[in-house]
């Protein structure tokens, strides 16, 4: 009785779902709950936001963030004490605080002319690409599911399982580079696909809503990882800290620009994945049927497509992409597996997919923007002491504005789906 609550000790093989659900009596596929409903309507509305709306959302977020930086700045607040005696003091202090912070962010994300060496000056842009790599892969995962009308909130969990399997292959096997790296990446992809596939299968066979299932599986993955890291199979020899040994050099993505930069081959792999997703969605029969299911499941079924199999296939592919993100993060950037390997990537990916309008090219660009925000936030914090939380605020406001396209249209007096109002917008923004 000395252990009343067992703590986070999930049984190792305790992945719920897959075997049990396949044995469950399958409801007739006509009753599977794939009615479009309000969520899907919102999704299609958010996805069809014009580029103008997206750009305005991002700009508004930066303006709001700048205001926050200004009002939290000590010099500005000091000067605000006598605002009516000499307003220019407060205004200029606020302006300086905001421009300093954003200037540092830009230097930290693109190019830093103040750096101590040429290598250091060029490092920021490579850091942006490094941070963007897993974001793009996970963003593709969420976007792919969006296109089929599915909300994959579980990229986080799929990423974790992918990273775990990639890690196991990476630090427990001893193979030559040509075999080891592809095998580790494949393990990550398979891990993610399995975790996503469970969701697709449950949705197809039992109608369990993918939002609920993915959120729950996120928890299962988090605690599975926490448990695994207490076992000798994942821990470093001679240490009981919950951190794995680094992956073998033969399983790590080769660095693209030498040891001074962290940019690795994983970035190119992610770009290839984006091209593949584009081909899959726009050029392949499978992708066409997935998009058809996303647009109108009833019509797709009437046209003879299997909605159930589409769900399973989409979630397998979506999970595989998230697993790729996990493999890229682990084998390229972090090298060791620890409890926080996934960070916020799986959740940021949802924003990336929305901002990218669920299109592969859009996701790549949105991923780069978010990578730049994250990478730039580091220097912003280090050189101007602006809290890193500003980055989170900017991201969140972007989400808020994108999630509600009518809001942006109202704020900027835009006509729905028409670009004629651009001039009004400019005057409103100024």
């Amino acid at each position, binding site marked *: 009785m000395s*252990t009343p609550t067992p703590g986070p000790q999930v049984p190792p093989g305790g992945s719920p779902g897959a075997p049990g659900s396949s044995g469950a009596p399958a409801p007739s596929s006509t009753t599977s709950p794939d009615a479009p409903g309000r969520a899907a309507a919102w999704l299609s509305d958010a996805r069809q936001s014009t580029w103008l709306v997206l750009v305005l959302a991002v700009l508004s977020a930066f303006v709001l963030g700048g205001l926050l930086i200004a009002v939290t700045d000590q010099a500005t607040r000091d000067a605000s*004490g*006598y605002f009516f005696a000499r307003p220019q003091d407060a205004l200029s202090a606020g*302006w300086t605080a905001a421009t300093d912070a954003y200037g540092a962010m830009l230097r930290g994300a693109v190019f830093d002319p103040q750096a101590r060496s040429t290598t250091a000056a060029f490092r920021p842009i490579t850091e942006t690409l490094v*941070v963007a790599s897993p974001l793009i892969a996970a963003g593709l995962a969420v976007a792919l599911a969006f296109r089929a009308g599915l909300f994959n909130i579980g990229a986080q969990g799929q990423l974790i399982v992918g990273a775990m399997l990639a890690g196991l292959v990476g630090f427990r096997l001893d193979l030559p580079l040509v075999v080891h790296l592809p095998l580790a990446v494949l393990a990550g992809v398979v891990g993610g696909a399995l975790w996503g596939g469970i969701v697709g299968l449950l949705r197809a066979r039992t109608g369990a809503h993918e939002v609920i299932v993915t959120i729950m599986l996120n928890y299962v993955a988090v605690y599975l990882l926490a448990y695994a890291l207490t076992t000798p199979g994942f821990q470093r020899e001679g240490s009981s800290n*919950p951190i794995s040994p680094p992956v073998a050099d033969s399983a790590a993505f080769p660095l693209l620009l030498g040891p001074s930069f962290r940019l690795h081959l994983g970035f190119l792999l992610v770009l290839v994945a984006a091209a593949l997703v584009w081909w899959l969605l726009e050029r392949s029969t499978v992708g066409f049927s997935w998009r058809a299911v996303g647009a109108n499941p009833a019509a797709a079924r009437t046209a003879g497509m299997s909605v159930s199999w589409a769900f399973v296939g989409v979630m397998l592919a979506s999970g595989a992409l998230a697993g790729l993100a996990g493999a890229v993060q682990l084998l390229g950037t972090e090298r060791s597996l620890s409890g926080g390997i996934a960070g916020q990537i799986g959740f940021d990916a949802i924003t990336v997919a929305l901002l990218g309008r669920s299109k592969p090219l859009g996701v790549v660009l949105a991923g780069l923007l978010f990578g730049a925000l994250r990478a730039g936030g*580091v220097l912003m914090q280090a050189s101007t002491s602006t809290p890193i939380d500003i980055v989170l605020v900017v991201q969140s406001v972007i989400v808020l504005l994108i999630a509600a396209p009518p809001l942006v249209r109202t704020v900027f007096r835009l006509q729905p789906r028409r670009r004629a109002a651009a001039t009004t917008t400019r005057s409103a923004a100024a």
Partner: protein
Amino acid sequence: MKKKLGTLAAVGAVALLAAGCGEAPEASTGAGSGSGTSAASDVKACMVSDAGGFDDQSFNQSGKEGLDAAVAELGIQEQTTQSSSEADFAPNIAALVQQNCNLVVAVGFLLADATGSAADANPDTQFALIDSTVEPARSNVKPLLFDTAQASYLAGYVAAGTSKTGTVATYGGIQIPSVTIFMDGFADGVAKYNEDNGTSVKLLGWDKATQQGSFTGNFDDIGAGQNTTQNFIQQGADIILPVAGPVGNGTLAAANAANAAGGDVKVVWVDSDGYNTVKESDRPLILTSVVKEIGASVQDAVKSEVDGSFSSEPYVGTLENGGVSLAPFHDNDANVPQAVKDGVSKLQQDVVDGTITVQSQSTP
């Protein structure tokens, strides 16, 4: 809706008016971006938090307080970065090195790898690492370690000697060595009391031999701490040691509830002297605390950087050097039997002398 907004705007304008009608200072302060006090020394001491942030009421916060104290005392410059996830560790350390920091303090064992590679890449910068060593050891990395088992050994002895029900309990946040070392020491202290006095005080929540026990799974779910503690109280425990940072607040809540229902539950706090850090109304609950002087160790490391005596030799906080200690009993002084107090003083002496060695597989 419009009307409401108008009212709001009016209220805001009045507030601004009230806030903004001070007098302008004589000289224009210009647009300095918070340059702070002029530095008496060129040294720049920097710190990277782990994902908990500097307001975690736990070791990040203690470390930051130590840094702030050193900066105030020595008149040096300071720069800090908070990590929001583990992916931030390496970039944050690199950014601080770029900002010409002379000493970078990394908080937590999770930063060990990032600190090690940064130390290799920047041999002219010094590093200090809290709660972990680097493998292999580097000449410019100073590990700051704590043999907390020594202090929690004393706490276990006190708890066993003060318990009226003959049952005490402990639980952790996450099963990592810097947490379980508290629990190991506590278990041994209880066992020592039983051995010396022929009693059989029971310990719930941790089995030192099998290294299995109760954990909330994180350092932020206060509700989990409350549930776990209620569970212990139902099983008869009346003294609880939560080793889970802010989650300990859940234990305070559960103890308050139990005491309101006629119980007599006390809490042993960790890291800092809980009597000084918890709410005033919760102070009577704090029997004592297992203090881990992270702040002082950071302060010393910064001082050594300033006076040029920095070395990579690990600092290990012990009862002997005051790096770990058992806090005073404060309001509960009268509730601890004199025999227990005498026993603890003797134990403290024995541990300092080396007559007794507190063993833990997590000992640094």
